């Protein structure tokens, strides 16, 4: 911890807290609980924190803002984290990335030597000729690509991710002076305020601001140094009952209607606020000069923060490059910490000295006016620098320093203000990019509009906070001439070797200029070609420099050289955080009998959101049981929609292709459902249960779609109809098998005789005291009754029937069994045997279409299909006995071409041979026609088209 200082000449150092130890690349190091990983590494003299993406150049800490790629590390196997944002914890394991064996001695650094061979766009011009080269080259490229390693043993369910919610009146983002001012003002207006800060403590940059406060709206702060005044302010806020403060919380996105998305540890916060005040501040500008990426080149605020908050002096011999009085402030901060400030290099000439410039002069610090930095010198880190005029390339002075501090103006952190809504524009007067037009109820204040003094930022925040609380217009901001000067950059005009614009992707100004020369002369094209701004920082470090320099190098005016779009998230956010605890957002729906099925060792299948019994024993055994005895199946997942009201019948006539005026009470009819484009998409039954009350049953998969379709049509063409979705409210059981009547009759008050209750009829009554509606319909081909009843009796009636049926060997069966049973009968299942091209005529259910009635859904298209005639048909087939059963979906092959497809294919336990449904060209869909099915493995099988259902072709069992 060689770099720790014990005292500072101009400020009181904060308490460091407990000493803790952590591991860095396997070595045990120590730090304090108030440290970030980065500050602890700095104290331990770790200068090189990573190697760069492409050239493996050594990189060190730059801005301490969690923006730059230099401090990306892996912490406890979590890759790509920013060491300068993460508080140090006891025992944490930190590893550097993209480097082997260590950042100091990196084997791949040989890339640096080959730099001239790897200019930008290099990959586009190499390795594609001859053709076979690229796959080999790519394999090598993929070996060295990427930054951190994904932990392939990691499992999200070991970690608990939570989603949490807040609904404040005013949400203030950023806890610097403007944010504090906004929070105070909103509190004074009596609002509930949420204040979010992405670091461990409130205060922002004023925590290390030595300037005396003036012009503060809180008058007792005037005269105090800002770093003390801000503490007074924070203490004052601490007691507010209407304030919630979240620290270490990063707002990663701001969406429409003031939806604020933030992360704190493993929690994601979703915040809806009436007003949002954005006070994200600004960070030191990146200056582009030779070797500007060397470790030792560091931003002014990183130096100040390190000294004033962590008591760590980054290095001994420093030169500060500046354009404003702030550079002298940094010099004094260094001087007070015991560093040797060799010089302040100031690009301005002959202006009136500011407050800190005077102090620096008094302290005897060398000052060079009208100069800027030309290059940093050094191999693995800064060992010296050359300075000269901003307009020329001649070096006039050199220093042997180990710290090159950049205090060259500020770039506002505009991401949350912009975020794909509004592209930042240059404010020429202030010399910064700005976003001015914000959506309603979003406010902004502070350094995001340009640098200003503590008092002025506090006041600006306060004004914005008050406006936010009152829902007033966003107040305008102003900057004084002196404040504007603080924003100006100090670029030298010439580009050269190793002038890095984008440190994430290793792009230099030379490369950018060359790319512009190749025609990529718009900022967005330039970005895509060079990858500038496309790395982990997403332009937070370089966005402003790209826009600034592209304007110069393309010759476009700043207005034309539009900076690239800023998009969410502001900080990279993990899938774990975003997903939260939910592995999948779709709910699981279970029937009322779910647990009764589990008790019988059921195998479930997923039918849409539903869990349905697939089978209990084996499908073959269950099929045989239904064919010879009695089976029952849980059909609670069917859609069950009740329609009543004066226009109910009229509505049904519009919705369904059939005619129902003659459907008497107690009668049931089979119906198709046709989409607007004439496609068969659903089938079901419609029953006239009691006078004017109709009951429509639909398949499991389509129930929600049909419900919303009904709602849509009732909205578009209002009718007096009540639609009740009873799908969840009713349970349903289908009892089927030749002995069903004898089994059920003693249990119910409904007369089940064939005369009183014929096929395709429905009756109301009760079973075991439970009110039921019974439908005599059958999908299985056997005599069957479908019983619908309130879901609260779901399990008890199911168990009751099984209990009562023991003597007659009544057993449950599953959906797979039912699929075989219906296939033996040749019944189609929409969606399984049909697809988005199937019309009802070709599917063989044209008999359900009554197209002589007035307009109904799909009518026009149905007419077209009818006029066009049948091209393909869905028909049943059988295979020879003992032939291997092809898979669902395989093709029918005729003269080497695929001419049709098998939709359902099973072995029939009853017939002991392969059966199925197949789409064939009309010419082939003739009874006894033989055709060839090619299975998944490419083996061909012969099949024969049959006329009717293979089982009970005339439905005698069904109607008996």
């Amino acid at each position, binding site marked *: 911890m060689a770099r720790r200082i014990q005292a500072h000449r101009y400020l009181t150092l904060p308490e460091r807290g407990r000493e803790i130890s952590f591991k860095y690349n396997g070595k045990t190091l120590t730090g304090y609980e108030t440290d970030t990983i980065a500050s602890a590494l700095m104290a331990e003299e770790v200068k090189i924190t990573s190697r760069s993406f492409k050239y493996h150049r050594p990189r060190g800490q730059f801005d301490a803002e969690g923006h730059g790629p230099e401090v990306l590390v892996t912490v406890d196997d979590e890759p790509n984290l920013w060491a300068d944002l993460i508080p140090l914890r006891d025992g944490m394991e930190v590893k550097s990335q993209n480097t082997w064996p260590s950042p100091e001695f990196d084997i791949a650094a040989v890339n640096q030597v080959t730099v001239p061979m790897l200019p930008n766009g290099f990959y586009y011009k190499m390795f594609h000729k001859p053709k076979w080269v690229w796959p080999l080259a790519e394999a090598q490229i993929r070996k060295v690509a990427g930054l951190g390693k994904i932990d392939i043993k*990691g499992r999200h369910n070991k970690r608990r991710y939570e989603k949490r919610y807040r609904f404040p009146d005013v949400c203030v983002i950023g806890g610097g002076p403007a944010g504090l001012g906004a929070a105070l003002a909103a509190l004074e207006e009596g609002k509930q305020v949420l204040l979010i800060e992405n670091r461990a403590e409130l205060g922002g940059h004023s925590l290390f601001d030595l300037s005396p406060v003036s012009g503060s709206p809180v008058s007792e702060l005037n005269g105090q140094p800002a770093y003390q005044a801000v503490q007074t302010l924070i203490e004052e806020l601490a007691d507010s009952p209407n304030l919630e403060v979240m620290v270490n919380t990063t707002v990663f996105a701001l969406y429409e209607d003031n939806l604020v998305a933030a992360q704190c540890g493993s929690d994601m916060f979703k915040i809806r606020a009436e007003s949002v005040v954005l006070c994200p501040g600004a960070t030191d500008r990146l200056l582009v000069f030779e070797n500007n990426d060397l470790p030792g080149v560091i931003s002014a605020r990183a130096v100040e923060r390190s000294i004033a908050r962590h008591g760590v002096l980054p290095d001994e011999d420093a030169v500060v490059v500046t354009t404003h009085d702030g550079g002298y402030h940094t010099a004094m901060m260094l001087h007070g910490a015991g560093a040797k400030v060799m010089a302040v290099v100031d690009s301005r000439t002959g202006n009136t000295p500011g407050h800190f410039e005077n102090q620096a002069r008094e302290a005897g610090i060398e000052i060079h006016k009208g100069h800027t930095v030309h290059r940093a010198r050094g191999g693995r880190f800064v060992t010296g620098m050359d300075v000269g005029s901003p307009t020329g390339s001649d070096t006039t002075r050199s220093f042997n320093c180990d710290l090159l501090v950049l205090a060259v103006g500020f770039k506002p952190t505009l991401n949350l203000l912009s975020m794909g809504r509004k592209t930042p524009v240059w404010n020429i007067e202030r010399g910064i990019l700005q976003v001015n037009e914000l959506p309603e109820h979003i406010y902004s204040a502070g350094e995001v509009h340009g640098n200003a003094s503590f008092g002025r930022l506090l006041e600006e925040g306060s004004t914005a906070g008050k406006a936010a609380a009152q829902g007033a217009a966003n107040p305008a901001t102003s900057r004084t001439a002196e404040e504007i000067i603080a924003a100006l950059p100090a670029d030298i005009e010439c580009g050269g070797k190793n002038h890095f614009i984008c440190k994430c992707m290793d792009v230099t100004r030379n490369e950018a200029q060359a790319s512009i020369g190749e025609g990529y002369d718009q900022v967005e094209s330039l970005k895509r070609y060079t990858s500038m701004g496309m790395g982990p920082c997403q332009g937070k470090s370089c966005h402003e420099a790209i826009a600034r320099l592209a304007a110069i190098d393309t010759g476009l005016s700043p207005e034309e050289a539009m900076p690239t779009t800023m998009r969410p998230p502001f900080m990279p956010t993990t899938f774990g955080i975003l997903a939260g605890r939910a592995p999948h957002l779709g709910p699981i729906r279970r029937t009322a009998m779910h647990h009764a099925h589990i008790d019988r060792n059921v195998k479930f299948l997923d039918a849409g959101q539903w869990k349905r019994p697939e089978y209990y024993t084996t499908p073959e055994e269950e099929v045989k049981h239904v064919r010879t005895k009695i089976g029952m199946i849980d059909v609670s997942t069917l859609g069950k929609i009740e329609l009543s009201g004066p226009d109910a019948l009229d509505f049904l006539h519009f919705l369904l292709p059939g005619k129902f005026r003659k459907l008497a009470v107690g009668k049931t009819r089979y119906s198709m459902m046709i989409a607007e484009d004439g496609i068969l998409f659903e089938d079901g039954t419609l029953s006239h249960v009691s006078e004017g009350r109709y009951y429509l049953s639909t398949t499991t998969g389509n129930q929600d779609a049909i419900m919303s379709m009904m709602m849509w049509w009732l909205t578009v063409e209002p009718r007096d109809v009540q639609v009740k979705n009873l799908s969840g409210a009713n349970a349903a059981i289908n009892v089927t098998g030749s002995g069903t009547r004898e089994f059920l009759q003693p249990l119910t008050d409904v007369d089940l005789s064939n005369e009183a209750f014929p096929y395709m009829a429905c009756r109301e009554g009760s079973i075991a005291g439970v009110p039921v509606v019974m439908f005599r319909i059958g999908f299985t081909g056997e005599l069957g009754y479908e019983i619908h009843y309130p879901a609260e009796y779901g399990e008890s009636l199911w168990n009751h029937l099984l209990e009562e049926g023991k003597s007659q060997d009544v057993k449950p069966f599953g959906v797979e069994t039912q699929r075989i049973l219906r296939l033996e009968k040749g019944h189609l299942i929409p969606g399984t045997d049909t697809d988005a091209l199937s019309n009802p005529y070709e599917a063989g259910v044209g008999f359900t279409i009554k197209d002589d009635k007035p307009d109904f859904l799909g009518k026009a298209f149905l007419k077209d299909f009818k006029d066009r005639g049948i091209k393909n048909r869905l028909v049943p087939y059988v295979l020879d006995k003992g032939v291997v059963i092809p898979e669902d979906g395989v093709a029918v092959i005729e003269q080497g071409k695929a001419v049709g497809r098998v939709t359902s294919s099973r072995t029939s336990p009853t017939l002991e041979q392969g059966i199925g449904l197949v789409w064939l060209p009309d010419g082939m869909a003739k009874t006894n026609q033989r055709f060839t099915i090619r299975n998944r493995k490419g083996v061909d099988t012969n099949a024969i088209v049959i006329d009717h259902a293979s089982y009970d072709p005339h439905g005698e069992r069904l109607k008996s």
Partner: protein
Amino acid sequence: MTQRMWHNKEIKDRYDVVIIGGGAHGLATAYYLAVNHGITNVAVLEQKFIGYGGSGRNTAILRSNYRTEEGIKFYDQALKLYEDLAQDLDFNLMFSQMGHFTLAHSTASMQAQTTRAAYNQACGVDSYVLEPKEIKEMLPEIDITDHPRYPIHGALYHPPGGIIRHDAVVWAYARACDRAGIHIHQLTKMEDIIMTDGKVTGVVTNRGKINCGMLVSCVAGWSSGICEQVGVKLALVTHPLQALVTTAYKPWLHHVVVSSTLHIYLSQTDRGELVCGNGIDHYPHYGMRSTLSFLEGYAAHVLELFPILHNVSVQRAWAGLCDMTPDYSPIISLIDEVQNFIVNCGWGTWGFKASPASGWNTAEMVATGRTPALIEPFRHDRYIKNRLVGEKAAASVGN
């Protein structure tokens, strides 16, 4: 010294062909006009910069394992052209034919994938169905247990499918166009179409009037607005589609993985980022912004497939526009009511992978005035005549 890829030229008074839209489709059309038909008095107008639209916003996946014969043949022409495009254009497009999985999470989807494999094979396209354990051998980190909400039943595997550097396709076509003498005018917005006696004779742009012999619209998501100007109503609804990219990790995934049940498109680039696409947003919209629910939903779903990705972080999310047609197939068509006008649109979520074939056939249509047989099924009047292409059949059986 490096050569310019393309030049900013003065706009001429008249071009034989004006193409609106400087994306992959527009530039490919211009390129094939020059190389296949010798037509070079051509201008491509681009309102922003080339590649601004769908060409630069897609997830760069190429494949030809479609469901219908017409779809398979068309996309296979595109894939074949892509395979040689880097050599033809002398620009490394970084096409990695890493293999493409379409996961099935239900018996219905397995049926659909089986049918696709059968039709693909019948058309000579390499494509077959895999069992879960075979998937696991190729993607060791995938979860094939019954733990996920929708367990994996199998997959359609398509070895020649893969990813390409999408922007490079745009640039390489643009350079080849420029070298053939075609003018590319960026920052040139078409404001109006000039019609004389039912014929298109020119366009008005923010940089002045341009006369043309033939006007080709290749503006995908913006097509409805363009065609409205000549009174043509298209069977299009524009929806946004959102995508995201993660920070770069050491390459770990060497195949394209798609699950339509989970709305997941996933691949890892040569830089190490995971590129992730979603299904379209459910509402029609022209806004290209992203939503939190997209990020949340995508994250939840991708962790169902690959639980190891929980600490992988998203660094950027964006959106593009999809001009969806009712039959999930494009429109490349002459228009009966408007002469000298060709629309090339309806590219929904399947546009980028079609670019070379789209350009090839559109160019032929411009040069000959006839519809090439391969794109006969994509005429715009099919919606009036109810002759839809069957690709919706594949797309609609997602789950």
